[in-house]
């Protein structure tokens, strides 16, 4: 299947990926993405009807370990990279807009 992506498609994909593409840049990204998608679609020319999928390059074995508790990463240390925290919790803007803001 050959797809031509337009600006609306790019805005949609960006939204799914939690990205924002500015109006200035949307043209450039659309052309580039269209070229990239054209390039990857050369796979269409290959018949793969009976070929199994391969999702990794490893020989996986099920590795078991003793069911024993081990110390995890230190909680205080984990907070060293947190930008804003309060009472041992990470502070973020309001998740649900209930009119109270982030009190």
């Amino acid at each position, binding site marked *: 299947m050959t797809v031509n992506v337009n600006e609306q*498609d790019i805005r949609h994909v960006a939204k799914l990926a*939690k990205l924002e593409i500015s109006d200035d840049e949307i043209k450039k990204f659309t052309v580039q993405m269209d070229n990239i998608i054209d*390039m990857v679609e050369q796979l269409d020319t290959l018949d793969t009807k009976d070929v199994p999928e*391969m999702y990794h390059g490893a020989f996986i074995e099920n590795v078991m370990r003793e069911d024993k508790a081990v110390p995890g990463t230190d909680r205080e240390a984990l907070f060293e*990279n947190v930008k804003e925290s309060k009472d041992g919790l990470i502070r973020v803007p309001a998740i649900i807009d209930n009119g109270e803001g982030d009190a």
Partner: protein
Amino acid sequence: MSLLEHTLEELHTMLVNKETTAEEIMTAVFARISETEDKIGAFITITEEEALLKAREMDEAGIDPDDLLSGLPIGIKDNIITEGTLTTAASRILEDFVPIYDATVSKKIKEAGMISVGKLNMDEFAMGGSTETSYFKLTRNPWNLEKVPGGSSGGSAAAVASGQVPVALGTDTGGSIRQPAAFNGIVGMKPTYGRVSRFGLIAFGSSLDQIGPFSRTVKDNALVLNAISGADPADSMSAQQEVPDFTAGIEKGVKGMKIGVPKEYMSEGLQPGVKEAVLKAVETYRSLGAIVEEVSLPHSQYGIAAYYIIASSEASSNLQRFDGIRYGYRAEGAESLDELYIKTRSEGFGDEVKRRIMLGTFSLSSGYYDAHFKKAAKVRTLIRQDFEKVFDSYDLILGPTATTTAFDIGGKVKDPVAMYLADILTVPVNLAGVPAISIPCGFSEGMPVGLQLIGKHFDEQTIYRAAYAFEQATDFHKERPNL
């Protein structure tokens, strides 16, 4: 002769015989860095104070004659986390990220006694083939400062090639160790998928990513791989295989070894000087007693398309974690959580990372999943089967690492598809999960050419043996850029 012209083994002997000290070696490293770094730009972070302190400590404790790597310097690519040292993956989104623990490889090189001298520049999140997508700086090729060092491990390769460090760690998802090794005239190994733990490697394409060493000589490379390999409970994809001594039998030679040269790798698109150097390498192997014959990897041409779908899909998932909440860059002025995510990611990621996230998101989205992601996974099987068929009758596969030598800075960065197509000879290896090395095999128009040797799964030993035989028979690894 500068201290940095010595191999790791020579430096070790000098340390044991008290002809030098770890501090003296480290001082020479930083002298060389300060002499060349303005031109090269290999490092994002230099940890001079810590490294010199550590070197002094090791001198005081005494160098253990049985610990070959102890007291010796190494550089680390900046997508491998290092406790207490800034780790950015060359992205604004991690511009102030100081990890609170070590990657398994960072821990292992410390256990081996090696001392990190700093963190090396790269394409942002390892996405690129020129190191030009780094948020922080440009790295230049020591052989010609107007050329790229390759990528994504361009900082690691340029640091080793310019004599700033004897060895460095890089990562290879689609060629990011081998291609910069080729562009800089040095040795770079991408081990078998699973050979080296990825714990603490900032993930790009999890089914493809591997950490591996850069060095000036083949044996130095094997010594570093010895130190970083092995199963790790923290990486469930790390292989349970025994790790051999990769230097054992390295001098056995290639007499009777069967080497296949894929006709697809020697086709029209090669720069003439690259083709010539590789054909000469074939003759060298024949003269050393190897049996070199033409073989076919018929699905090679589909490697790029399958790779960019798979790697980008995995990246789009892996990079969801960068949201401005727990670490890294956080955008100002967001009024809702959703806006915080979107602003943080849009300001924090560069264009190439955005393109890959969008390609991956597109390939995984409803309506395109079967035609893109699933199709690529099937093509991946065909590519792996191509390798398996050849390896039924051959010990190694030989070809160029890249179709050209290092290109001009700014030459490809504006055309993403041209940049992607340049990976055609390296990505099939990652898709199949097999190991491969790039070693210097000549020059084309003054720039180094890389020879790629691809081996069977977990057979890095045969690769090293063949690479070492070539190195002993040639002088390309002794050439140095004029800086």
